[in-house]
Protein backbone atom coordinates (compact mmCIF):
# COMPACT_ATOMS: atom_id res chain seq x y z
CA UNK A 1 0.00 0.00 0.00
CA UNK A 2 0.89 3.67 -0.23
CA UNK A 3 1.93 5.19 3.10
CA UNK A 4 1.45 8.88 3.79
CA UNK A 5 1.46 11.38 6.65
CA UNK A 6 -0.71 14.45 7.12
CA UNK A 7 0.86 17.84 6.58
CA UNK A 8 0.80 20.35 9.43
CA UNK A 9 -2.31 22.50 9.81
CA UNK A 10 -0.07 25.55 9.28
CA UNK A 11 1.09 24.32 5.86
CA UNK A 12 -2.43 23.30 4.86
CA UNK A 13 -3.72 26.72 5.95
CA UNK A 14 -1.06 28.46 3.86
CA UNK A 15 -2.37 26.57 0.83
CA UNK A 16 -6.15 26.95 1.39
CA UNK A 17 -6.50 30.36 3.03
CA UNK A 18 -7.43 31.99 -0.26
CA UNK A 19 -10.64 29.94 -0.64
CA UNK A 20 -14.06 30.73 0.86
CA UNK A 21 -15.33 27.16 0.51
CA UNK A 22 -13.36 23.93 0.73
CA UNK A 23 -14.37 20.33 0.13
CA UNK A 24 -12.20 17.99 2.25
CA UNK A 25 -12.01 14.62 0.45
CA UNK A 26 -10.60 11.48 2.06
CA UNK A 27 -9.69 8.14 0.53
CA UNK A 28 -10.70 4.91 2.25
CA UNK A 29 -7.94 2.73 0.76
CA UNK A 30 -4.20 2.79 1.50
CA UNK A 31 -4.15 6.08 3.37
CA UNK A 32 -6.96 4.82 5.60
CA UNK A 33 -4.85 1.78 6.50
CA UNK A 34 -1.99 4.05 7.52
CA UNK A 35 -4.38 6.30 9.48
CA UNK A 36 -3.57 9.39 7.43
CA UNK A 37 -6.45 10.01 5.04
CA UNK A 38 -9.41 7.67 5.69
CA UNK A 39 -12.91 8.50 6.83
CA UNK A 40 -11.91 9.23 10.41
CA UNK A 41 -8.93 11.39 9.46
CA UNK A 42 -11.11 13.35 7.03
CA UNK A 43 -13.52 14.24 9.81
CA UNK A 44 -10.68 15.12 12.15
CA UNK A 45 -8.97 17.36 9.60
CA UNK A 46 -12.21 19.18 8.73
CA UNK A 47 -12.83 19.83 12.43
CA UNK A 48 -9.24 20.95 13.04
CA UNK A 49 -9.38 23.32 10.07
CA UNK A 50 -12.65 24.86 11.24
CA UNK A 51 -11.14 25.43 14.67
CA UNK A 52 -7.99 26.90 13.18
CA UNK A 53 -9.95 29.31 10.97
CA UNK A 54 -12.25 30.18 13.86
CA UNK A 55 -9.27 31.26 15.98
CA UNK A 56 -8.40 33.73 13.22
CA UNK A 57 -11.97 35.01 13.08
CA UNK A 58 -12.61 33.33 9.73
CA UNK A 59 -15.37 30.91 8.80
CA UNK A 60 -15.05 29.48 5.30
CA UNK A 61 -17.46 26.73 4.28
CA UNK A 62 -15.79 23.39 4.99
CA UNK A 63 -17.56 20.22 3.80
CA UNK A 64 -16.43 16.61 3.91
CA UNK A 65 -16.57 13.57 1.67
CA UNK A 66 -14.68 10.28 1.54
CA UNK A 67 -14.17 8.15 -1.56
CA UNK A 68 -13.48 4.42 -1.50
CA UNK A 69 -10.61 5.05 -3.92
CA UNK A 70 -9.40 8.44 -5.01
CA UNK A 71 -7.32 7.06 -7.89
CA UNK A 72 -10.14 5.42 -9.88
CA UNK A 73 -12.57 7.45 -12.00
CA UNK A 74 -15.65 5.36 -11.08
CA UNK A 75 -15.23 6.38 -7.45
CA UNK A 76 -14.05 9.93 -8.13
CA UNK A 77 -17.34 10.68 -9.84
CA UNK A 78 -19.04 10.11 -6.48
CA UNK A 79 -18.35 13.71 -5.43
CA UNK A 80 -19.31 15.30 -8.79
CA UNK A 81 -22.42 16.93 -7.30
CA UNK A 82 -20.47 18.55 -4.43
CA UNK A 83 -17.53 19.89 -6.40
CA UNK A 84 -19.27 22.87 -8.09
CA UNK A 85 -20.37 24.17 -4.68
CA UNK A 86 -16.75 24.62 -3.51
CA UNK A 87 -13.87 26.79 -4.60
CA UNK A 88 -11.28 24.10 -3.88
CA UNK A 89 -10.79 20.48 -2.91
CA UNK A 90 -8.43 19.55 -0.08
CA UNK A 91 -7.46 15.95 -0.80
CA UNK A 92 -6.39 13.39 1.77
CA UNK A 93 -5.48 11.01 -1.02
CA UNK A 94 -1.93 10.04 -1.91
CA UNK A 95 -0.16 11.92 -4.69
CA UNK A 96 -1.88 9.70 -7.23
CA UNK A 97 -5.30 10.52 -5.75
CA UNK A 98 -4.63 14.26 -5.81
CA UNK A 99 -3.60 14.12 -9.47
CA UNK A 100 -6.50 11.87 -10.45
CA UNK A 101 -8.93 14.39 -8.94
CA UNK A 102 -7.20 17.15 -10.88
CA UNK A 103 -7.50 15.21 -14.11
CA UNK A 104 -11.26 14.72 -13.58
CA UNK A 105 -12.14 18.12 -12.07
CA UNK A 106 -10.20 20.29 -14.47
CA UNK A 107 -11.37 23.70 -13.24
CA UNK A 108 -11.13 23.14 -9.46
CA UNK A 109 -7.88 23.63 -7.54
CA UNK A 110 -6.89 20.38 -5.77
CA UNK A 111 -4.69 20.87 -2.70
CA UNK A 112 -2.84 17.96 -1.04
CA UNK A 113 -3.30 17.52 2.70
CA UNK A 114 -0.81 14.63 2.89
CA UNK A 115 2.86 14.04 2.22
CA UNK A 116 2.99 10.77 0.30
CA UNK A 117 5.95 8.73 1.52
CA UNK A 118 6.35 5.21 0.20
CA UNK A 119 5.06 1.78 -0.78
CA UNK A 120 5.13 -0.28 2.36
CA UNK A 121 3.46 -2.55 4.85
CA UNK A 122 1.86 -2.27 8.27
CA UNK A 123 4.56 -3.94 10.34
CA UNK A 124 2.54 -3.62 13.52
CA UNK A 125 -0.16 -1.28 14.75
CA UNK A 126 1.22 2.24 14.43
CA UNK A 127 4.34 1.18 12.50
CA UNK A 128 4.62 1.30 8.73
CA UNK A 129 7.75 0.15 6.91
CA UNK A 130 8.91 1.07 3.42
CA UNK A 131 9.82 -2.03 1.46
CA UNK A 132 9.34 -1.38 -2.27
CA UNK A 133 10.67 1.39 -4.53
CA UNK A 134 8.83 0.18 -7.61
CA UNK A 135 12.12 -0.22 -9.51
CA UNK A 136 10.35 -2.14 -12.28
CA UNK A 137 12.57 -5.22 -12.12
CA UNK A 138 11.75 -7.19 -9.00
CA UNK A 139 14.80 -9.02 -7.72
CA UNK A 140 13.32 -10.27 -4.46
CA UNK A 141 13.68 -13.83 -5.76
CA UNK A 142 17.45 -13.53 -5.57
CA UNK A 143 17.61 -11.89 -2.16
CA UNK A 144 15.39 -13.99 0.07
CA UNK A 145 12.40 -11.66 -0.34
CA UNK A 146 14.28 -8.74 1.23
CA UNK A 147 14.70 -5.84 -1.20
CA UNK A 148 18.28 -4.46 -1.38
CA UNK A 149 17.11 -1.50 -3.45
CA UNK A 150 14.72 -0.41 -0.70
CA UNK A 151 16.02 -1.85 2.55
CA UNK A 152 19.71 -0.93 2.02
CA UNK A 153 20.25 2.81 2.48
CA UNK A 154 22.84 2.75 -0.32
CA UNK A 155 20.87 0.46 -2.67
CA UNK A 156 23.82 -1.95 -2.67
CA UNK A 157 23.41 -4.97 -4.91
CA UNK A 158 26.67 -6.51 -3.66
CA UNK A 159 26.45 -5.57 -0.01
CA UNK A 160 26.72 -5.14 2.88
CA UNK A 161 28.83 -2.00 3.22
CA UNK A 162 31.30 -1.45 6.04
CA UNK A 163 28.77 0.43 8.13
CA UNK A 164 26.67 -2.53 9.24
CA UNK A 165 26.85 -2.99 13.02
CA UNK A 166 24.82 -5.37 15.20
CA UNK A 167 22.24 -5.68 12.43
CA UNK A 168 21.80 -1.92 12.23
CA UNK A 169 22.48 0.59 9.46
CA UNK A 170 25.21 3.25 9.73
CA UNK A 171 22.66 5.89 8.79
CA UNK A 172 20.56 5.43 11.90
CA UNK A 173 20.32 2.65 14.51
CA UNK A 174 16.54 2.73 14.02
CA UNK A 175 17.12 1.31 10.53
CA UNK A 176 17.76 -2.41 10.24
CA UNK A 177 20.65 -3.34 7.94
CA UNK A 178 18.94 -4.69 4.84
CA UNK A 179 21.96 -6.79 4.00
CA UNK A 180 22.05 -8.40 7.42
CA UNK A 181 18.38 -9.28 6.82
CA UNK A 182 19.17 -10.72 3.39
CA UNK A 183 22.05 -12.82 4.70
CA UNK A 184 20.10 -14.03 7.75
CA UNK A 185 17.09 -14.98 5.66
CA UNK A 186 19.08 -16.81 2.97
CA UNK A 187 21.11 -18.56 5.68
CA UNK A 188 17.95 -19.85 7.32
CA UNK A 189 16.59 -20.96 3.94
CA UNK A 190 19.88 -22.70 3.09
CA UNK A 191 20.18 -20.55 -0.04
CA UNK A 192 23.22 -18.39 0.76
CA UNK A 193 24.76 -19.58 -2.51
CA UNK A 194 22.50 -17.07 -4.28
CA UNK A 195 24.84 -14.31 -3.09
CA UNK A 196 28.09 -15.81 -4.37
CA UNK A 197 27.81 -14.33 -7.83
CA UNK A 198 28.60 -10.73 -8.80
CA UNK A 199 25.41 -8.76 -9.41
CA UNK A 200 25.84 -6.37 -12.39
CA UNK A 201 24.59 -2.76 -12.36
CA UNK A 202 20.82 -2.35 -12.18
CA UNK A 203 18.93 -1.28 -15.30
CA UNK A 204 17.22 1.79 -13.89
CA UNK A 205 15.46 2.51 -17.18
CA UNK A 206 12.55 0.41 -15.88
CA UNK A 207 12.34 2.66 -12.82
CA UNK A 208 11.31 6.30 -12.64
CA UNK A 209 14.72 7.13 -14.18
CA UNK A 210 13.18 6.13 -17.51
CA UNK A 211 10.53 8.86 -17.09
CA UNK A 212 6.95 8.54 -15.80
CA UNK A 213 5.87 4.97 -16.39
CA UNK A 214 2.65 3.78 -17.95
CA UNK A 215 1.20 0.31 -18.34
CA UNK A 216 -1.01 -0.23 -21.38
CA UNK A 217 -2.93 -3.53 -21.65
CA UNK A 218 -5.04 -3.92 -24.76
CA UNK A 219 -6.84 -6.92 -23.24
CA UNK A 220 -8.08 -4.72 -20.40
CA UNK A 221 -9.31 -1.82 -22.50
CA UNK A 222 -13.08 -1.35 -22.99
Amino acid at each position, binding site marked *: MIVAERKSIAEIRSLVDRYASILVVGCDSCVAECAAGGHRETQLLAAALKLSFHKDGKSPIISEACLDRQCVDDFIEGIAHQVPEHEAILSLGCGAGVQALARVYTTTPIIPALDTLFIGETEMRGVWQENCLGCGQCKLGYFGAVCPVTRC*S*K*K*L*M*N*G*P*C*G*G*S*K*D*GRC*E*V*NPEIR*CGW*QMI*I*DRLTSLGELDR*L*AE*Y*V*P*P*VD*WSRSHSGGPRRVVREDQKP
Partner: protein
Amino acid sequence: MNTESKLEKVLAAGHFAVTAECGPPKGSDVSVLERKAAHLVGRVDAVNVTDNQTAIVRMSSIAACSILKGMGIEPVVQMVTRDRNRIALQSDLFGAYALGLRNVLCLTGDHHSFGNQKAAVGVFDLDSIQLVRTVRDMRDKGTIIDGEAIQGAPKMFIGAAENPFADPVAWRVTRLAKKVAAGVDFIQTQCVFNVDRFEEFMLQAHNAGLTDKVSVLAGVTPLKSAAMARYMATKVAGMDIPEELLKRISGVPKEKQAQEGITIAVETIQRVRKIPGVAGIHLMAIEWEEKVPEILESAGLAQRPQV
Protein backbone atom coordinates in the same frame (compact mmCIF):
# COMPACT_ATOMS: atom_id res chain seq x y z
CA MET B 1 52.32 -5.55 -14.88
CA ASN B 2 48.95 -4.23 -15.92
CA THR B 3 49.52 -0.51 -15.52
CA GLU B 4 52.07 2.29 -15.22
CA SER B 5 51.24 2.65 -11.54
CA LYS B 6 54.21 3.12 -9.26
CA LEU B 7 52.23 1.51 -6.45
CA GLU B 8 51.76 -1.58 -8.57
CA LYS B 9 55.53 -1.69 -9.22
CA VAL B 10 56.32 -1.45 -5.50
CA LEU B 11 53.90 -4.25 -4.64
CA ALA B 12 54.89 -6.43 -7.60
CA ALA B 13 58.54 -6.20 -6.53
CA GLY B 14 57.51 -7.58 -3.14
CA HIS B 15 58.28 -4.44 -1.14
CA PHE B 16 56.21 -3.70 1.96
CA ALA B 17 54.22 -0.76 0.61
CA VAL B 18 53.40 2.40 2.51
CA THR B 19 50.59 4.68 1.41
CA ALA B 20 49.19 7.71 3.18
CA GLU B 21 45.97 9.63 3.07
CA CYS B 22 45.41 13.29 2.38
CA GLY B 23 42.07 15.03 2.83
CA PRO B 24 41.62 17.93 0.40
CA PRO B 25 40.53 21.37 1.67
CA LYS B 26 36.96 22.55 2.05
CA GLY B 27 37.45 25.11 -0.68
CA SER B 28 39.85 25.96 -3.48
CA ASP B 29 42.86 26.97 -1.40
CA VAL B 30 45.71 25.03 -3.03
CA SER B 31 48.19 26.10 -0.35
CA VAL B 32 46.34 24.01 2.27
CA LEU B 33 46.76 20.95 0.11
CA GLU B 34 50.40 21.73 -0.67
CA ARG B 35 51.22 22.20 3.02
CA LYS B 36 49.77 18.81 3.92
CA ALA B 37 51.32 17.05 0.95
CA ALA B 38 54.77 18.52 1.64
CA HIS B 39 55.01 16.21 4.66
CA LEU B 40 54.44 13.20 2.42
CA VAL B 41 56.72 13.87 -0.59
CA GLY B 42 59.33 11.09 -0.79
CA ARG B 43 58.07 9.51 2.43
CA VAL B 44 55.41 7.14 1.06
CA ASP B 45 54.82 5.13 -2.10
CA ALA B 46 51.47 6.70 -2.87
CA VAL B 47 48.99 9.18 -1.42
CA ASN B 48 45.30 8.52 -1.46
CA VAL B 49 43.08 11.60 -1.77
CA THR B 50 39.63 11.24 -0.26
CA ASP B 51 36.46 11.91 -2.26
CA ASN B 52 34.23 14.15 -0.13
CA GLN B 53 34.79 11.91 2.89
CA THR B 54 31.94 11.65 5.38
CA ALA B 55 29.93 13.45 2.69
CA ILE B 56 31.48 16.83 3.50
CA VAL B 57 31.93 18.93 0.35
CA ARG B 58 35.63 19.33 -0.44
CA MET B 59 37.94 19.92 -3.39
CA SER B 60 37.48 17.06 -5.87
CA SER B 61 39.80 14.12 -5.46
CA ILE B 62 40.83 14.18 -9.13
CA ALA B 63 41.78 17.87 -9.02
CA ALA B 64 43.72 17.42 -5.79
CA CYS B 65 45.45 14.30 -7.14
CA SER B 66 46.53 16.21 -10.21
CA ILE B 67 48.08 18.91 -7.98
CA LEU B 68 49.87 16.25 -5.89
CA LYS B 69 51.22 14.63 -9.03
CA GLY B 70 52.76 17.97 -9.92
CA MET B 71 54.56 17.85 -6.57
CA GLY B 72 56.12 14.47 -7.40
CA ILE B 73 53.65 12.36 -5.43
CA GLU B 74 52.06 9.18 -6.78
CA PRO B 75 48.35 9.82 -6.18
CA VAL B 76 45.47 7.40 -5.67
CA VAL B 77 42.13 8.85 -6.77
CA GLN B 78 39.24 7.95 -4.53
CA MET B 79 35.89 7.54 -6.25
CA VAL B 80 32.66 7.05 -4.36
CA THR B 81 29.46 6.01 -6.08
CA ARG B 82 27.32 8.10 -3.73
CA ASP B 83 27.45 11.30 -5.76
CA ARG B 84 27.88 10.36 -9.41
CA ASN B 85 26.01 8.06 -11.74
CA ARG B 86 27.73 5.72 -14.17
CA ILE B 87 27.96 8.39 -16.86
CA ALA B 88 29.84 10.80 -14.58
CA LEU B 89 32.02 8.09 -13.00
CA GLN B 90 33.18 6.72 -16.33
CA SER B 91 33.74 10.20 -17.72
CA ASP B 92 35.83 11.11 -14.68
CA LEU B 93 37.86 7.93 -15.05
CA PHE B 94 38.74 8.99 -18.60
CA GLY B 95 39.65 12.43 -17.32
CA ALA B 96 41.68 11.20 -14.37
CA TYR B 97 43.76 8.96 -16.61
CA ALA B 98 44.23 11.77 -19.11
CA LEU B 99 45.69 13.85 -16.28
CA GLY B 100 48.26 11.14 -15.62
CA LEU B 101 46.59 9.50 -12.62
CA ARG B 102 47.17 5.75 -12.50
CA ASN B 103 45.50 4.46 -9.32
CA VAL B 104 41.86 4.49 -8.31
CA LEU B 105 40.19 3.40 -5.10
CA CYS B 106 36.57 2.36 -5.69
CA LEU B 107 34.19 2.99 -2.81
CA THR B 108 30.49 3.34 -2.21
CA GLY B 109 31.13 6.16 0.26
CA ASP B 110 29.75 7.25 3.60
CA HIS B 111 26.05 7.95 3.46
CA HIS B 112 25.25 11.61 2.77
CA SER B 113 23.22 11.84 5.97
CA PHE B 114 26.59 12.18 7.78
CA GLY B 115 27.68 15.21 5.81
CA ASN B 116 26.93 18.87 5.37
CA GLN B 117 24.49 18.40 2.47
CA LYS B 118 21.94 16.17 4.13
CA ALA B 119 19.18 17.12 1.67
CA ALA B 120 21.19 15.77 -1.29
CA VAL B 121 19.98 12.88 -3.43
CA GLY B 122 22.09 9.78 -2.86
CA VAL B 123 22.93 8.50 -6.33
CA PHE B 124 24.19 4.95 -5.70
CA ASP B 125 23.69 4.05 -9.36
CA LEU B 126 26.57 1.57 -8.98
CA ASP B 127 28.00 -0.01 -5.86
CA SER B 128 31.73 -0.24 -5.15
CA ILE B 129 32.06 -3.76 -6.55
CA GLN B 130 30.32 -2.76 -9.76
CA LEU B 131 32.70 0.20 -10.03
CA VAL B 132 35.69 -2.14 -9.62
CA ARG B 133 34.37 -4.28 -12.48
CA THR B 134 33.76 -1.17 -14.58
CA VAL B 135 37.36 0.05 -14.17
CA ARG B 136 38.71 -3.41 -14.85
CA ASP B 137 36.68 -3.81 -18.05
CA MET B 138 37.91 -0.41 -19.22
CA ARG B 139 41.50 -1.52 -18.67
CA ASP B 140 41.36 -5.14 -19.80
CA LYS B 141 38.64 -5.09 -22.45
CA GLY B 142 38.72 -1.45 -23.55
CA THR B 143 34.99 -1.10 -23.00
CA ILE B 144 32.54 0.86 -20.87
CA ILE B 145 29.44 -0.56 -19.15
CA ASP B 146 27.28 -2.42 -21.69
CA GLY B 147 30.30 -3.18 -23.85
CA GLU B 148 30.84 -0.16 -26.06
CA ALA B 149 34.47 0.26 -27.19
CA ILE B 150 36.40 3.39 -26.15
CA GLN B 151 39.30 5.37 -27.58
CA GLY B 152 42.28 5.19 -25.26
CA ALA B 153 41.33 2.97 -22.37
CA PRO B 154 42.34 4.15 -18.89
CA LYS B 155 44.66 1.54 -17.43
CA MET B 156 44.23 1.99 -13.73
CA PHE B 157 45.65 0.05 -10.81
CA ILE B 158 42.42 -0.78 -9.00
CA GLY B 159 41.82 -0.57 -5.29
CA ALA B 160 38.86 -1.06 -2.99
CA ALA B 161 38.24 -1.01 0.74
CA GLU B 162 37.21 -3.72 3.12
CA ASN B 163 36.15 -3.46 6.72
CA PRO B 164 37.13 -6.62 8.62
CA PHE B 165 35.32 -5.27 11.69
CA ALA B 166 31.85 -4.66 10.28
CA ASP B 167 28.93 -7.04 10.58
CA PRO B 168 28.09 -9.64 9.54
CA VAL B 169 31.69 -10.58 10.41
CA ALA B 170 31.42 -14.02 8.85
CA TRP B 171 30.53 -12.43 5.53
CA ARG B 172 33.57 -10.15 5.26
CA VAL B 173 35.91 -12.59 3.54
CA THR B 174 33.13 -13.63 1.14
CA ARG B 175 32.75 -9.97 0.23
CA LEU B 176 36.51 -9.65 -0.24
CA ALA B 177 36.33 -12.65 -2.58
CA LYS B 178 33.60 -10.87 -4.58
CA LYS B 179 35.83 -7.82 -4.90
CA VAL B 180 38.74 -9.96 -6.05
CA ALA B 181 36.53 -11.69 -8.60
CA ALA B 182 35.33 -8.28 -9.81
CA GLY B 183 38.97 -7.37 -10.53
CA VAL B 184 40.45 -5.51 -7.59
CA ASP B 185 44.27 -5.30 -7.37
CA PHE B 186 44.73 -3.87 -3.89
CA ILE B 187 42.66 -3.48 -0.75
CA GLN B 188 42.85 -0.79 1.89
CA THR B 189 41.29 -1.92 5.13
CA GLN B 190 39.38 0.07 7.69
CA CYS B 191 41.63 1.41 10.49
CA VAL B 192 43.03 -1.52 12.43
CA PHE B 193 42.80 -1.10 16.18
CA ASN B 194 41.55 -4.58 16.95
CA VAL B 195 44.63 -6.43 15.68
CA ASP B 196 43.36 -9.83 16.87
CA ARG B 197 40.24 -9.54 14.76
CA PHE B 198 42.28 -8.30 11.80
CA GLU B 199 44.63 -11.28 12.12
CA GLU B 200 41.64 -13.64 12.05
CA PHE B 201 40.31 -11.90 8.92
CA MET B 202 43.68 -12.19 7.19
CA LEU B 203 43.93 -15.87 8.08
CA GLN B 204 40.49 -16.50 6.56
CA ALA B 205 41.48 -14.49 3.47
CA HIS B 206 44.73 -16.42 3.22
CA ASN B 207 42.96 -19.77 3.58
CA ALA B 208 40.51 -18.73 0.87
CA GLY B 209 43.49 -18.16 -1.45
CA LEU B 210 42.77 -14.44 -1.71
CA THR B 211 46.06 -13.02 -0.45
CA ASP B 212 47.85 -14.37 -3.56
CA LYS B 213 45.41 -12.48 -5.78
CA VAL B 214 45.15 -9.14 -4.03
CA SER B 215 47.56 -6.91 -2.08
CA VAL B 216 46.09 -6.06 1.30
CA LEU B 217 47.20 -2.77 2.86
CA ALA B 218 46.32 -2.61 6.55
CA GLY B 219 44.73 0.69 7.53
CA VAL B 220 46.49 2.43 10.44
CA THR B 221 45.33 5.61 12.13
CA PRO B 222 47.26 7.31 14.95
CA LEU B 223 44.92 8.47 17.70
CA LYS B 224 45.51 12.10 18.69
CA SER B 225 43.80 11.96 22.05
CA ALA B 226 41.52 9.92 24.29
CA ALA B 227 38.65 12.16 23.20
CA MET B 228 39.29 11.35 19.54
CA ALA B 229 39.49 7.64 20.37
CA ARG B 230 36.14 7.75 22.20
CA TYR B 231 34.59 9.74 19.37
CA MET B 232 35.79 7.27 16.75
CA ALA B 233 34.72 4.29 18.84
CA THR B 234 31.19 5.56 19.32
CA LYS B 235 30.40 7.92 16.45
CA VAL B 236 32.28 6.73 13.36
CA ALA B 237 30.55 4.03 11.33
CA GLY B 238 32.34 0.71 11.05
CA MET B 239 35.06 1.43 13.65
CA ASP B 240 36.20 -1.17 16.18
CA ILE B 241 38.41 0.21 18.97
CA PRO B 242 38.85 -2.30 21.80
CA GLU B 243 38.11 -1.12 25.32
CA GLU B 244 41.66 -1.88 26.50
CA LEU B 245 43.05 0.54 23.91
CA LEU B 246 40.62 3.24 25.03
CA LYS B 247 41.75 2.66 28.63
CA ARG B 248 45.40 2.79 27.62
CA ILE B 249 45.19 6.18 25.94
CA SER B 250 42.86 7.58 28.60
CA GLY B 251 45.31 6.41 31.25
CA VAL B 252 48.10 8.82 30.25
CA PRO B 253 48.04 12.58 30.99
CA LYS B 254 46.33 14.68 28.34
CA GLU B 255 49.54 16.29 27.08
CA LYS B 256 51.10 12.87 26.49
CA GLN B 257 48.11 11.26 24.76
CA ALA B 258 49.21 12.26 21.26
CA GLN B 259 52.58 10.59 21.82
CA GLU B 260 50.83 7.51 23.19
CA GLY B 261 48.64 7.46 20.08
CA ILE B 262 51.72 7.47 17.89
CA THR B 263 53.32 4.70 19.95
CA ILE B 264 50.15 2.61 19.54
CA ALA B 265 50.19 3.24 15.76
CA VAL B 266 53.83 2.15 15.53
CA GLU B 267 53.13 -1.00 17.55
CA THR B 268 50.15 -1.74 15.32
CA ILE B 269 52.31 -1.39 12.21
CA GLN B 270 54.89 -3.75 13.66
CA ARG B 271 52.21 -6.32 14.52
CA VAL B 272 50.34 -6.22 11.21
CA ARG B 273 53.62 -6.45 9.31
CA LYS B 274 54.12 -9.94 10.67
CA ILE B 275 50.69 -11.16 9.58
CA PRO B 276 50.91 -13.36 6.45
CA GLY B 277 49.30 -11.75 3.42
CA VAL B 278 49.69 -8.15 4.58
CA ALA B 279 51.42 -6.38 1.67
CA GLY B 280 51.72 -2.96 3.24
CA ILE B 281 50.05 -0.29 5.30
CA HIS B 282 47.81 2.61 4.53
CA LEU B 283 48.49 5.36 7.06
CA MET B 284 45.51 7.58 7.69
CA ALA B 285 46.86 10.40 9.87
CA ILE B 286 43.68 12.46 9.84
CA GLU B 287 44.56 16.19 9.79
CA TRP B 288 47.93 15.08 11.18
CA GLU B 289 49.96 14.50 8.02
CA GLU B 290 53.03 16.12 9.63
CA LYS B 291 53.39 13.08 11.92
CA VAL B 292 53.69 10.61 9.03
CA PRO B 293 57.53 10.87 8.77
CA GLU B 294 57.97 10.32 12.52
CA ILE B 295 55.64 7.31 12.56
CA LEU B 296 57.36 5.70 9.58
CA GLU B 297 60.82 6.29 11.05
CA SER B 298 59.78 4.70 14.35
CA ALA B 299 58.26 1.77 12.48
CA GLY B 300 61.44 1.26 10.42
CA LEU B 301 59.69 2.16 7.18
CA ALA B 302 61.36 5.48 6.43
CA GLN B 303 63.32 4.16 3.45
CA ARG B 304 61.05 3.83 0.44
CA PRO B 305 62.05 1.57 -2.43
CA GLN B 306 63.12 3.07 -5.74
CA VAL B 307 61.16 1.38 -8.53
